[in-house]
């Protein structure tokens, strides 16, 4: 993609905006359509686009393979950890009221935010991991031979 100047410039401009939009969808998820899953996919798109236009090597400098694997697990742990916290404080598993016992409806907001953050991290990491797995395979015919 070295000679596609427009693509390279537009990608550089877009990546930041895509990430910003992902965060918007993430944090606005409890008021409007969206949430962790959609935000995670949009966030992953930023990395995948960068990887497609530049190179796998370059995107893996930003988000190395080992980190992706850890993030997959981390998101699940954040989700489950929220539930465990509410269990430890004497509430049912994932009863968000535990996060703000005196004002349970605030607790619900905090809880959904935390859980969605976990979902977002895992979905981002899984999408990127799938992308890495596909592009990481050695091509049967190298680009120059086409």
């Amino acid at each position, binding site marked *: 993609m070295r000679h596609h100047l427009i693509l390279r410039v537009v990608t550089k401009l877009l990546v930041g905006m895509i990430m910003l939009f992902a965060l918007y969808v993430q944090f606005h998820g409890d008021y409007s359509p969206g949430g962790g899953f959609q935000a995670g996919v949009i966030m992953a798109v930023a990395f995948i686009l960068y990887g497609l236009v530049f190179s796998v090597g370059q995107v893996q400098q930003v988000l190395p393979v080992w980190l992706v694997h850890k993030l997959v*697990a981390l998101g699940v742990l954040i989700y*489950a950890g929220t539930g465990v916290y509410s269990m430890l404080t004497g509430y*049912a*598993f994932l009863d968000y009221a535990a996060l703000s016992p005196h004002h349970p*409806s605030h607790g619900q907001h905090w809880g959904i935010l935390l859980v969605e953050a976990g979902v977002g991290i895992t979905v981002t990491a899984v999408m990127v991991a799938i992308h890495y797995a596909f592009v990481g395979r050695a091509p049967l015919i190298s680009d120059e031979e086409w």
Partner: protein
Amino acid sequence: MAEGSVQHTALSLLDHLPVLVVLIPFLAAPLVVLIGRNWLAWPLAFMAALGSFIVSVMLLAKVRGGEVLSYHMGGWAPPLGIEYRIDTANAFVLLIVSAIAVVILPYARASVRVELPDRHVPLFYALFLLAFTGLLGVAATGDAFNLFVFLEISSLSTYVLIALGGYRDKRALTAAFNYLIMGTIGATFFIIGIGFLYMATGTLNMADLAARIAELPDNRTIHAGFAFIVVGIGLKVAIYPLHLWLPNAYTYAPSAISAFIAATATKVAVYVLMRFLFSVFQPDFGFVAETLQYIVMPFALLGMFAASFIAIFQNDFKKMLAYSSIAQIGYMLLGISLMSETGLTAAIVHLFNHAITKATLFMVVGAYVLRSGGSFYRSLEGMGKTMPWTSAAAIVGGLSLIGVPGTAGFISKWVLVQAALEQDMWWIALLVVASSLLAVIYVWRGVEVVFMKQPADDVDRRPAPLMMIIPIWIMAGACVYFGLATDVTLGAARDAAQGLMAGPGPLLLGGH
């Protein structure tokens, strides 16, 4: 802000048991990946399995008296919220799955070290824990959609685990792919069925579903939903004509995984079938009784014979065991299709007895594979001489598979024959005995290869490592113990059958 202050009674640890049994391995799985150290992966996995086992023993002790535990996820009461509902049937299945995992994990440690590359070890245990979580979740939940989610968690991780057998034999990859396609079709049918039920009733909670389905006996949507669910679960159970994914998946999976899924995965699916046939739908609803009588029973009988015949002509020890599993699933389905308390007891007790029997045998083959590199009869010749302890356990397992008195396998067949005679179906009793004779033939073929042949000169003559022999003998010991002391297994199975026959309980809004 004090104005919104809300009264709340704190839950104790004991109230959390229904969710803890699933949660412990579920938390351990990402931890194993996050830590990522090979030496820590196994201890974490084992501790998690042990934790689940202890919790499920406590649960079974608690519900044996007929009490039903209900746990409300996130504090949302059913039918809106997800409910974990534990009665004797669930608790018994939870116990089977977690006990098998506890015994197989020490065994897995030795075999994984040889069969998989080092870098995959933490991921292997993480996947194992996820498969384990999924199976426990399916058993624990009282929500039809949640059941589907857990079914997929366990199935997806099982596909990958089977594919890991590709390091030993590349055919594991096609086996896993086959299972992926068939399993996904099964899951899709199941979820379509759930969708139909939801469309007609507007609820997903099983107890609530049962109450509403009973009010709509002639609803076409529900009938279609029932058909989809039975076929979908039938694929996961491997009811005879839907079994095609099973032999290769069991044969080419890593040894520890063969033992684990052979002992648990289809058992949990049989439990789901029972739950839907007896708790969500009732035998007097629509054509449930006809389905059992004219579809499930003939296929169960067909499977008992056809799969046993195929097992006789195998030349691979693992594949022989896999086909025998299909035949044994026939016994469980036969018990279910008799629609009596004794029949259900036979099916449930066979879940347990067959799980320990097949776990023993698959672990034995895994030990053979460790030394001979393959499970073909040709490469197992004379193993009885080079691995006497392991092979002795194979005999115990084989006897239990046939159903010789004094072994666990006898108990389940005895109850099954009783159930058949109760309804004057003497011909079914005869067929059960006749198919056991087929088991004698295929077990004998294995014994002949292992004990009557001379080992080849270039064979690795070391016995199996102690870490494999101990789990193998714990299981083989269990086959004998539960063939003699039947209070626990048969008692729990009878309680579970009574619970299922009594139909669904009321919605438990006051639970935790």
